[in-house]
């Protein structure tokens, strides 16, 4: 590959997804200027908080060479837990702590299955997806509407404003990504995740505790799904056992759009955030243009395929046609 091409791909890796987002915004802006108004953009950011936070956790899992298909079920479970606890009159802080613990426990279960029983991440989390969804339904089999009295404190997370300006979901989203960025780039944990993802046997030989790292990764994924669950419950005011159905695909789509390599070892924190926003923005824009749910899904699939195709072209140029 020529030097110029190499330079192009290097830049593309950093800002490619941002270019796609800007292009989409310009196209939508031409079609209907309402879509790119500041208020709408703020709404898009607000909505992308849930999938964005879960995607941050998912990025660690994919970067470590795995997947977590159980995040949707964890999100439903935590949604039910917080609604149940609040309705029973427990304090908001206690309820949130319970959900985070539940998310962590789910993560530990996933991690133990993957490291100790050596089940592949894909099938292990597929099985726990079923199991967690079942546990959720056993625990709470119908949606719980949160009364306004119960919801007053939780509502702070969805409609509250930090310092009177920044909406809470956006603040949480930014905070989550700052933490993710720092953890991924500047902590031993981040380095270990990348090492395990790019070459597990080599990581093992160099003395990295692969099992502990993987269990931690799934705890991170579980807790981020739990945070997303709390936020989503606050937004819709309902504890719903089916809230997270298909949610894992949203999170994975955001991560993949962001340029995180599915083969593991190479994550992209900023890209993941942009990816999550892009998915929400495409859906919202089409919604304003009057396109139905089916067109929105189709559009997300096309955007995903487009990003993957570019990735494929890059691979072919790098390695030749082998």
């Amino acid at each position, binding site marked *: 590959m020529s030097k110029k091409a190499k330079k192009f791909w290097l830049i593309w890796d950093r800002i490619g997804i941002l270019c796609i987002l800007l292009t989409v915004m310009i196209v939508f802006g031409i079609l209907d200027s309402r879509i790119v108004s500041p208020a709408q953009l703020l709404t898009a950011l607000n909505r992308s908080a849930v999938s964005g936070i879960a995607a941050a956790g998912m990025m660690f899992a994919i970067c470590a060479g795995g*997947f977590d298909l159980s995040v949707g079920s964890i999100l439903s479970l935590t949604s039910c837990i917080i609604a149940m606890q609040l309705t029973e009159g427990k304090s908001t802080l206690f309820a949130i702590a319970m959900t985070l613990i539940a998310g962590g426990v789910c993560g530990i279960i996933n991690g133990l*299955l993957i490291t100790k*029983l*050596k*089940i*592949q991440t*894909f*099938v*292990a989390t*597929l*099985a*726990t*997806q*079923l*199991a*967690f*969804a*079942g*546990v959720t*339904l*056993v625990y709470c*089999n119908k949606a719980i509407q949160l009364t306004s009295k119960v919801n007053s404190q939780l509502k702070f997370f969805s409609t509250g404003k930090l310092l009177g300006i920044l909406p809470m979901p956006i603040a949480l989203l930014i905070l989550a990504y700052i933490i993710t960025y720092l953890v991924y780039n500047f902590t031993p944990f981040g380095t270990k995740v990348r090492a395990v993802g790019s070459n597990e046997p080599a990581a093992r030989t160099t003395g990295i505790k692969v099992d502990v790292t993987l269990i931690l990764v799934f705890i991170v994924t579980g807790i981020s799904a739990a945070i997303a669950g709390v936020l989503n419950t606050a937004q819709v005011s309902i504890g719903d056992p089916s809230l997270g159905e298909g949610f894992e*695909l949203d999170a*994975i*789509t955001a991560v*993949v759009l962001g340029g995180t390599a*599915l*083969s593991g070892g190479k994550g992209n924190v900023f890209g993941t955030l942009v990816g999550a926003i892009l998915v929400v923005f495409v859906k919202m824009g089409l919604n304003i243009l009057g396109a*139905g*749910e*089916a*067109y*929105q*899904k*189709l559009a*997300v*699939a*096309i955007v*995903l*395929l487009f990003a*993957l*195709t570019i*990735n*494929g*072209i890059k*691979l*072919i140029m790098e390695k030749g046609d*082998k």
Partner: protein
Amino acid sequence: MEKKRRLHIEYGDHGILYALIIFWIVLIITNENFRGLAFFQTILTKASLNAICGIGMTFAVISGAFDLSVASQVALNGVVLTLILPKMGIFPSIIVILLLGALMGTINGLLISKLRIPSFIATLAMQMAYRALAQLINSSPVVVDNSGFKKIAAYKIAGIIPTAFLICIILGILGTIILRKMKLGRNILAIGNSREAAIISGINVAKTEIMIYLLIGLFTAASSVIIVSYLGSSNYGMQSGLEFTVISAVVLGGTALIGGKGSIFNTIVAAVFLISIRSAMDSFGVDSYWQRVVEGVILIIAFSITEIRNIINTILVKRKAKKQLSMQKASK
């Protein structure tokens, strides 16, 4: 010792069949609901719907890949089938559906082999796309009003064997012939064992991969014809989550997820096993929510059995090597 090991290996090959037979015997003894012919006919018919799709999926899993789009393929096939059935008649419609399935499979295959998109994510994107297309074509449920077509799944040959199960067995034999006797099957096994080695030995990997997804498309199309015939209706949201049931059956049947080995016969048996468990829980009055938990736990056990078996095998091999070493030392 030698005999024990041989027994172990044989048990490993048909383990799922023995498990199914033992499970059935336990059911027949413990619950009188399981004693009628009709009960087994229902189980076999229901299992065939998943198993036919599973035959195609077995090829993908053997090659070390997945196809997550099968459920959406069924939905698109189903929606199109119910639309064209009143206009075209039974046989032309089935042929159109098979062609449609082949087309969808080829698209998946091209994305995966030519654009180097990992199968997981390519089929994930196509899952969304096919489902959306199905919704665009027809967003309201359609009831099939063709008694001849409904008979495909409901008819019982000589009053005993359900047609759906017979079709499943015929397709299973066809799949086994492709896998064991044809060049394509050997190439698929080679790719599953080692992709690099397959490329070096001159196998056309791209072409084989396209063929794998084409086969999945065809088997899924066959499965969707029978599913629509069985349900007597179609809608764009139908059979969501089917891909996971099908992959579970393939893995439960002992096809290694890392690729390289597998058996279509075992996939069919595993599909029957999964449906049997579901029916058993139904008739024992197990809460439908607990059923999901139980299914998840069964899957976890099934997946880790391979690992446990591997551990036992390594211990056996090590012990044998040790014995030989000590014998060599003694003879010296």
